[in-house]
């Protein structure tokens, strides 16, 4: 392939260079065609001539380009990867063409079990059941079936119980870059106080953009 050319190019990213060897354009083309978020690792695998730092730099530049030119889409960090997505304020217009985006619906018990796993991961079945005050084995199994939760290891010590964590599918379906993007339990308490509202939930993406 033409990896040689990329190397010669990679110190300069001319804003207007649309040539097929411009790294930023290559990443953009891949992102444009992708239906799933792409991780930096995947990029690196496809473009061995670029290192992680260069890939991240190019991705940030693409983000800045879209932001500064007021595009109706943005390069979003989701599920540990990158994906081109429309901006939320255009959802009303998109819905004139398409039915509302498919949404995860979980029973209250499944959702609270998922919340416990998301906040306490890695966590054992027993630890979840103790917090919920009721055996949660079947709820956890069904979350595993839905690929929102997976076995991530075994606990040290006697019994070596299975440990459960959230998956990339979970991050995808809830629009999160990684679990640490969730507000802390203390922050939630404040958000739920009467003076506030859940509409004011912070999301990493928006904050990053507002700073620009």
């Amino acid at each position, binding site marked *: 392939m033409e990896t040689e050319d990329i190397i010669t190019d990679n110190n300069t990213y001319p804003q207007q260079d649309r040539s097929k060897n411009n790294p930023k354009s290559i990443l953009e083309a891949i992102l444009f065609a992708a239906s799933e978020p792409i991780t930096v690792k995947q990029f690196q695998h496809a473009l061995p001539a670029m290192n992680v730092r260069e890939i991240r730099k190019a991705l940030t530049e693409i983000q800045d380009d879209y932001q500064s030119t007021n595009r109706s889409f943005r390069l979003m960090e989701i599920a540990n990867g990158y994906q081109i997505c429309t901006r939320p304020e255009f959802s009303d217009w998109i819905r004139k063409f398409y039915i509302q985006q498919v*949404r995860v*619906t979980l029973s*209250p018990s499944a959702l609270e079990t998922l919340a416990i796993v998301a906040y306490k991961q890695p966590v054992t079945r027993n630890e979840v059941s103790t*917090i919920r005050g*009721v055996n949660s084995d079947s709820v956890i199994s069904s979350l595993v079936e839905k690929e929102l939760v997976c076995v991530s290891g075994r606990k040290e010590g006697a019994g070596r119980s299975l440990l459960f964590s959230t998956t990339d599918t979970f991050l995808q379906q809830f629009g999160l870059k990684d679990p640490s993007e969730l507000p802390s*339990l203390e922050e939630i308490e404040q958000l739920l106080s009467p003076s506030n509202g*859940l509409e004011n939930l912070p999301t990493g993406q928006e904050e990053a953009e507002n700073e620009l």
Partner: protein
Amino acid sequence: MLEQISSTNSSLHPIYSIKIDGFEGPLDLLLELIQKEEMDIRDIQISIITDRYLEYVNLMEQLDLDLASEFLVMAARLLHIKSESILPQIAEKTKYPIGNQAQLVQQLLEYKRYKEAAQVLDVYAEKRTLIYNRSSKLHSDLDGTRTYEIKATLFDLLTAFKNINDRISNIEQDEEYHTVEEETITVEDKIAFIERQLANDDQLLFDDLFHFTSSKLDLIVTFLAILELIRLGTIVTVQTGLFESIYIVKPVTENSGSI
């Protein structure tokens, strides 16, 4: 009311028994009762809450729901705390570890934190629907969107069931004559009936399903059929708000079945 149900209960036993694992647990019930009574978790009037809790546990037992043992353990715990509060000298003598109200309050507070976190997760799922990406599984617009505020819990369903049962009891008492017929309806029949109704309609009103019921047994069978369908993920029960009417709908996607 509870005695009236139990009179039909004995005949129900061989028909069906619903496992209720996967539904909400005793802490959930306690939180809902505390909320309904508009109490502060840190300042629970233990005797009121214990009575209300036992009322629900009795109802679940009489419906022959395969009650999680945790519900009974909690009942014992509440009764112990209640006795301690009435006779503090007992508390001093026994120092029974699980009967400690402060400990229960801590457990409730921690559990509540995760319930709130679950609410937050739900908001994220909702916000996610505003963002579209290439080849998201988009369907062309069919019937617009319905929005339900919250999903109904087991206790919302039990409350709705209690209300209907009370209403029917009143009607039956007013009637002078009773026609005695042999009942042969099974939970399986009811499940098939509800599935047929849902094939025609996108949503069913929980109360409406009971309009077709002719007897108390029928009422209980209908309720058990609804619980079984929820457990199987065939239906989801939703409400437009807390303590509002309950609707029965199909899950939105193939991987969205309620547990």
